[in-house]
């Protein structure tokens, strides 16, 4: 197996090329720092007859061979052969960003000295700068002494690219020439086993001069490649930026964009949601009509359909969220958003670069915590990692929508704002605000230190591709459905068993109404007993044991709250007609007070609890992995749990 490494400056399109060649599903966007780890994939063309097997490795972006962050370290380590996952490779392909040809070229020249004739050059994004023609390509090839291919990865020039790589890959294992200069301070970014290939220098000046040297050389070469009339087109970006990063208009547009994002998740999904909801209702009725009374019917209708269906109705929201995020990401707007919010981040003691991990936290904490690797300063990185989980991730979406949609009355305030959309926005705001506030506290205490530098590339704007957005949306939908079909299905069955058995003795039910029997059986079940045992803790925050069980199960994954309630309430419901979970929640009456169990106060208590608490085992694991110790996920769990409980208490006591 031949291995080829993809190297290039940040946002030059390495992952797009990787996906194109390998059929992989790496996340791609139009801003720097998306790829923070190495990924390997086999070329799609390996399957064709007579083709040699080749694998390709996608690596985080670098500007030069002097890493200043952990993700850059991964790439440099891989090049010098100290990445344990692939100690051997045969070829390096450097991706040049035509919009930033100078800096990309500087990297190419430095790589050329390191790997010699084993370097292939890919000039990417030629669709954006059409003046770059065959003549330029040939000149560049001559000046560099390496094979050059110009392409547009977004336009899917796959066949040509594949051919180019196959033609030029050579058998022997690559051995780097010379050593990489590194200051003592930057040694922390190198992995074990890198000592041989690294030469430690005393003065930073040496490294700086080295970088400058390659930049100047790149300019020389470019001078011979470009004619006087060749100019990078950048007016479009310049013009759009006049509005989008304008101090006043830019800020207003930023707020409008994000309000609209949340509003559309909410409003656009409603019809689709009703449709899914209706379909599951119909399914439950149909199945119920054919099955005889008994445990099997109850398991399928109340356990599986009510549990899994309760979660699947949130599929439309998930799809809309990721579709719109992808459009924003591809356009190049995200870096501008980081620019506009840097002041705020700085105020909370964070690097402006922390904006990007925080933003991906809205999708899921796991990639977000990984992308904190792009933050150079360790203390800032820790403060970022330990607060990201409070950013509202997409797993909280079902819980928010269920509770807000059911219990917050919908009307219009101030002419344009919808109360439900505002509540939604408030929940997102609350999580973000407390994440930042806690980060600030961390930066004033455990992770005290100066706020490090903020430099961010503002990429050229680019027309978002519908196909890319649809792909991302579909991928997220698949993940969500897979979760529904596996973990949620499995747990729904377990929850059903636990809340059905042990059953009540038949004698005890004589003379009682159906409703009373249903509720007594639930309380008598294993789950009911567990729930009842911690009811005292739940009382001050207004929850009953059923919600408590939902919250408990949600520690596995937050969506499970919805499926668990779905199952418990379906079992407690004696009506023949199947209802949606929302209707059941509204109709639930407390046997003690005779009033509805769910009120606005209870709903907000639950919502606030979900905003803060760290109910996700996968996040615990990634925090452990990125920080190297179980201590940190435990800290995070405890402080977020305390915040969640006291927040829920405050909300309940205020609203009751």
């Amino acid at each position, binding site marked *: 197996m031949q291995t080829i490494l993809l190297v290039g400056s940040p946002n030059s399109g390495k992952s797009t090329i990787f996906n194109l060649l390998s059929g992989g599903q790496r996340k791609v966007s139009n801003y720097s720092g998306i790829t923070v780890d190495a990924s390997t994939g086999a070329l799609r063309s390996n399957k064709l007859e007579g083709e040699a097997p080749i694998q390709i490795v996608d690596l985080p972006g670098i*500007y*030069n061979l*002097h890493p*200043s962050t952990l993700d850059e370290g991964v790439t440099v380590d891989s090049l010098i052969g100290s990445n344990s996952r692939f100690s051997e490779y045969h070829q390096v392909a450097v991706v040049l960003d035509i*919009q*930033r040809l*100078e*800096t990309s070229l*500087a990297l190419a020249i430095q790589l050329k000295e390191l790997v010699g004739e084993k370097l292939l050059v890919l000039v990417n994004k030629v669709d954006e700068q059409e003046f770059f023609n065959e003549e330029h390509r040939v000149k560049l090839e001559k000046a560099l002494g390496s094979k050059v291919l110009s392409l547009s990865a977004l336009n899917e020039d796959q066949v040509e690219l594949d051919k180019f790589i196959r033609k030029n890959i050579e058998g022997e294992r690559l051995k780097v020439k010379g050593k990489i200069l590194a200051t003592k301070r930057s040694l922390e970014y190198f992995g074990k086993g890198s000592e041989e290939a690294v030469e430690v220098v005393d003065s*930073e000046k040496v*490294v*700086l001069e080295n*970088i*400058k040297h390659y*930049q*100047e050389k*790149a300019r020389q070469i470019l001078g011979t490649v470009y004619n006087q009339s060749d*100019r*990078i*087109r*950048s007016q479009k*970006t*310049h013009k759009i*930026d*006049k509005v989008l*990063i*304008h*101090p*006043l208009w*830019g*800020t207003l547009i930023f707020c409008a964009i994000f309000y609209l994002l949340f509003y559309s998740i909410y409003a656009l999904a409603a019809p689709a949601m009703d449709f899914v909801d209706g379909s599951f209702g119909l399914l439950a009725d149909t199945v119920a009509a054919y099955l005889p009374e008994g445990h099997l019917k109850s398991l399928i209708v109340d356990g599986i359909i009510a549990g899994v269906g309760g979660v699947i109705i949130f599929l439309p929201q998930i799809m809309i969220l990721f579709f719109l995020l992808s459009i924003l990401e591809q356009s190049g707007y995200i*870096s501008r958003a980081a*620019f*506009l919010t*840097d*002041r705020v981040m*700085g105020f909370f003691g964070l690097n*402006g670069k922390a904006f990007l991990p925080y933003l991906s936290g809205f999708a899921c904490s796991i990639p977000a915590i990984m992308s904190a690797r792009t933050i*150079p300063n360790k203390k800032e990185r820790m403060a970022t990692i330990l607060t990201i989980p409070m950013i509202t991730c997409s797993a909280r979406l079902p819980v928010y929508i269920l509770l807000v949609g059911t219990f917050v009355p919908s009307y219009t305030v101030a002419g344009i704002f919808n109360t439900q959309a505002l509540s939604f926005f408030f929940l997102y705001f609350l999580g973000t605000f407390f994440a930042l506030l806690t980060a600030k506290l961390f930066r004033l205490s455990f992770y005290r230190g100066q706020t*490090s*530098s*903020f*430099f*961010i*590339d*503002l*990429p*050229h704007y680019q027309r978002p591709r519908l196909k890319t957005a649809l792909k991302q949306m579909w991928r997220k939908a698949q993940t969500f459905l897979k979760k529904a079909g596996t973990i949620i299905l499995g747990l729904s069955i377990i929850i059903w068993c636990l809340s059905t058995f042990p059953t009540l003795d038949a004698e005890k039910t004589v003379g009682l109404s159906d409703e009373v029997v249903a509720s007594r059986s639930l309380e008598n079940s294993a789950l009911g007993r567990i729930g009842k045992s911690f009811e005292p803790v739940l009382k001050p925050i207004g929850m009953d044991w059923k919600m408590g069980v939902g919250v408990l199960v949600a520690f596995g994954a937050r969506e499970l709250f919805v499926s668990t309630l779905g199952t418990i309430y379906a079992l407690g419901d004696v009506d023949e007609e199947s209802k949606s979970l929302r209707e059941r929640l509204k109709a639930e009456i407390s046997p003690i007070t005779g009033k509805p169990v769910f009120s606005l106060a209870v709903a907000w208590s639950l919502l606030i609890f979900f905003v803060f608490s760290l109910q996700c085992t996968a996040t615990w694991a990634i925090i452990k992995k990125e920080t190297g110790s179980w201590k940190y996920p435990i800290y995070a769990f405890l402080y977020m749990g305390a915040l969640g409980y006291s927040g829920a208490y405050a909300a309940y006591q205020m609203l009751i």
Partner: protein
Amino acid sequence: MMPNLLDVKIGQKVRITKIADKNQTTLKLFSLGILVGDEIEITSKALFGCPLAIKHGEGNFFALRKDHAALIEVETIA
């Protein structure tokens, strides 16, 4: 004293005359290909004047904070 980047108005083209020695900042500037003698232009400042958005050369756009901008000395060009 030479003016630094903070003294420059939006839209004014300037040339870099000196980049003060401060390792991390200089490293990052050099890495982005920003060297003494280059032409730059401030394209925008965020609310309250920080950070600054800059256009460098033909089409490199990037942003930096005030304290880094203060390290870059410039002269105006007509």
